[in-house]
């Protein structure tokens, strides 16, 4: 088979200016839908063409391996001409009657943003036409697909949920946690840690069970687990909000500004230092003591890292994906003694660049930082380096094969391996497993069956 992947003459110069080749980001509605899938009884609806919801469902189904329902306002030529109001009104009525949701999240698309549909106004009209009915909350989320990325879409969805629902009423002694786009397994890791710390929490939102559900011969049409509408309402009464992903902190900023709830943004608790920081915030805010169990997990993780260090030291790694996952993994990779020589995210973000520069300074190396770039650019960089491990989503599999570098799959989407919803990297417990997985990948690929490191004999002159 002809390998057509990289055709640039001068590999080390990123000279591609216009085309995006093999994207490393998706569009805003994709992120918004993922946030809504963590709300119990929520029906996400994309106000746009059918393809938007269908292709997103396809991607989400093959990643989470769960049935995913996202409805569509099914815009077509006839309705585009007159604006989408009729379709959205009809859709709201259908969803309300047919699916009986606890909440409806309406995300826009490039189509309906461009024709200028005012979703908030249309929703108001719908409510006004049903004055005596007990309607579920309907939340508009403006997610024009032509700006930002899925990362921004997630952020906007959580912000809209909070803006529309949060209601101050006393104090609840809980901490709001905004996970960002992380796996069900990772949300569960954080929940478990908070349980151990004996700290009450509200997750905005919570996909830990809605997208990793047991088989029970029945199918939940809407998420039957997840953040409850009442919890989102109660988020205005918490002690603080921690946004695990820095790029998902708009709702926290809103709560801080409007209700004076302290906002803390990231970093994603991956690895020892970032998890320490997270636990530090919690203990500082709540005054709780760190339990022995957590101390022990931390100790075991450091033990694992020390056990692994001879195999990992100085090996160069490329990491790509969503900005917070990449910076989180980069810092963790440094803790293992490896060097994240190339990092890439499709999202334009000065925060990402700044974070990576800080990590580089802290660890004294100079990585290639690609922000707002694509997998073609990443591949081009990889070609002119001597890397030994790739970390990122399934879309990098062809690069891995073409360059003969092992790929450790994580992030979104992971569709060519099982268990994407359970891949976890956050906290100490998942960290311990991750140290083992990374190191075993190195052992598998660079050491023989008796434990000797492969040597390139051609380079040795006898």
């Amino acid at each position: 088979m002809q390998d057509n992947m990289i055709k640039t003459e001068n590999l080390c110069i990123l000279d591609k200016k216009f085309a995006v080749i093999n994207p490393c980001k998706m569009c805003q509605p994709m992120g918004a839908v993922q946030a809504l899938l963590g709300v119990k009884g929520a029906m996400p609806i994309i106000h746009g063409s059918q393809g938007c919801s269908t292709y997103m469902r396809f991607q989400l189904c093959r990643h989470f391996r769960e049935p995913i329902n996202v409805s569509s306002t099914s815009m077509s030529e006839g309705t585009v001409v007159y604006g989408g109001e009729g379709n959205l009104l009809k859709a709201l009525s259908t969803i309300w009657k047919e699916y009986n949701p606890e909440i409806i999240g309406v995300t826009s698309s490039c189509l309906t943003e461009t024709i200028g549909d005012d979703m908030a106004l249309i929703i108001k009209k719908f409510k006004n036409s049903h004055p005596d009915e007990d309607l579920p909350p309907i939340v508009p989320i403006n997610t024009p697909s032509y700006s930002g990325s899925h990362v921004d879409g997630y952020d906007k969805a959580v912000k809209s949920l909070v803006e529309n629902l949060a209601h101050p009423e006393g104090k609840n002694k809980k901490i709001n946690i905004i996970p960002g786009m992380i796996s069900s397994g990772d949300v569960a890791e954080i929940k478990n840690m908070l349980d151990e710390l004996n700290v009450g929490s509200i997750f905005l939102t919570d996909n830990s069970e809605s997208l990793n559900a047991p088989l029970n011969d029945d199918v939940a049409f809407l998420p039957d687990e997840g953040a409850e509408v009442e919890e989102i309402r109660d988020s205005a009464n918490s002690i603080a909000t921690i946004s695990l992903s820095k790029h998902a902190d708009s709702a926290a900023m809103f709560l801080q500004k409007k209700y004076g709830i302290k906002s803390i943004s990231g970093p994603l608790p991956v690895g020892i230092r970032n998890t320490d920081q997270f636990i530090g915030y919690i203990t500082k805010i709540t005054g709780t003591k760190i339990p022995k169990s957590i101390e022990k997990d931390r100790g075991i993780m450091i033990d694992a890292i020390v056990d692994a260090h001879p195999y990992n030291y100085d090996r160069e790694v490329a990491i790509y994906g969503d900005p917070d996952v990449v910076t989180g993994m980069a810092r963790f990779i440094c803790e293992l003694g490896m060097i994240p020589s190339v990092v890439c995210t499709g999202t334009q973000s000065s925060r990402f660049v700044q974070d990576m520069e800080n990590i580089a300074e802290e660890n004294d190396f100079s990585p290639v930082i690609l922000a707002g770039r694509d997998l073609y650019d990443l591949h081009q960089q990889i070609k002119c380096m001597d890397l030994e491990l790739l970390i990122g989503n399934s879309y990098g599999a062809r690069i891995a094969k073409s360059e003969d570098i092992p790929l450790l799959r994580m992030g979104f989407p992971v569709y060519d391996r099982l268990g994407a919803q359970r891949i976890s990297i956050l906290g100490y417990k998942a960290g311990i497993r991750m140290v083992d997985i990374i190191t075993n990948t190195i052992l598998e690929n660079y050491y023989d069956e008796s434990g000797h490191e492969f040597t390139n004999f051609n380079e040795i002159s006898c």
Partner: protein
Amino acid sequence: MMLSTGSYSSKCMQKEMGHIQNNKPFNNLFLHNKTAGADEIQIDDSIIKTLGERKKHMCIKKGNDSSPACNKASIPGTVTQRSCVYGGARVVLMPVTDAIHLVHGPIGCAACTWDIRGSRSSDDDLYKSGFSTNLEEKDIVFGGENKLLETIIELNKLYNPAAIFVYSTCVVGLIGDDLKSVAKKASELTKCRVIPVQSEGFRAVNKSLGHQLACDAMLDYLIGSGEVKNPSKYDMNIVGEFNVAGDLWDIKPLFKNIGVNVLCAITGDSKVEDIAAAHMAKLNVVQCQKSSNYLAARMEEKYGIPFLKVNFFGIEETSNSLRNVAKFFHDPGMIKKTEKLIESEIWRIRAEISKYREKLTGKKVAVYVGGNKAWSLIRAFEELGMEVIMTGTQNGLPEDYERIRETVKDGTLVVDDANSMELARLLKKYKPDLIVSGAKEKYLSLKLGIPFCDFNHDRISSFAGFQGFINFAKEVDRAVSSPVWNLTPKKCSGVKENAG
């Protein structure tokens, strides 16, 4: 012509028919079909409860006056399984292996759809990369034409591809970018074939228009512009064959064996220059009649190439398709060779197939797919001794439902544009032993404990021709007979009951 070889399948079919007639869960519900014209038929609540305006989109096949309403806009708010016009265009064109498929639009349209076609290539892999103009806010305001032109020039410089297909998406139609004139200009500047596909997602209620637009793009810009070096009188194209999981590679050798030269498959495992010369064929055969009848009809009109509808799923359908091609070429030698091939192939696979038949006989199947498979799979399942109790498509046209009506037995439930809630209700109520569908329905059925077989982009082995039929039987058996189903709650009681 129908020699002993033909009787293998027809005999077993007869056997199955008796069986099928008795086992239809819907047989006793015929009365519920109202007797008025096809459009007036409404499905009864006893079969499925659904929205009033959806009731006429489902019916139980009985004689000749039962087809569901179709080709209507989906009800806004339902979880439709349909996609968009761009989706329709890309499924037809994206298997062209040595072309760049550039999606002109915001990133999402390309990001959600690159490298998901499942069609295989024997050589070039350019089609597997995802290309986008990544339209951003400023492009929406000032227009995306310049960005498109620059992108095409850049891509041509990087890859020197055989062609660049440019797909327009919803927002491009709204901001009024002139795709055709940009393509023309880019083509002049780069000397590369730049082919515009006017596939704005919202242009129709389903993706069928996209299929047609993709065919138009090939007709207007490609077919007729190249030539075959050594034409022969047995040159043929296979239209609507996309080489998903390598289907084409199980069909081509059959034709080689009987002396037919496959010039080009449109578009599975194809190269741009093959399609450019496709007009020199003496015959077109159409496999996916949903997407590609239009192309064959237009090629007949334009180049006088006759076409035959074929079907390579199942033994009888494959055999008849080969026979019809041989018959078309009026070559007694070829006809003889064909019968010999069919006989030896059926002989070759019979032992393995009967092994699966034994395990699968009497199992009930539901089919819900996007294209021609809603009818083209029916016989194949019958050959495995299975009975199709439900079939349907997301985007069928009246002629599709006519084909379905001709193919399925009385008592089969036929559904149009069933949304995910309706599918869940039907599966829960009628509990088929297998559902054949695509990725979006996969986990819905598995969660319900219903075995699933992917017959869409994600399937893992070729299902076409005689060899493909073995793979198909194996795949169906793997889904249906696995012991994992003994662990599901309905089969295996909970932890407490099992203790001790």
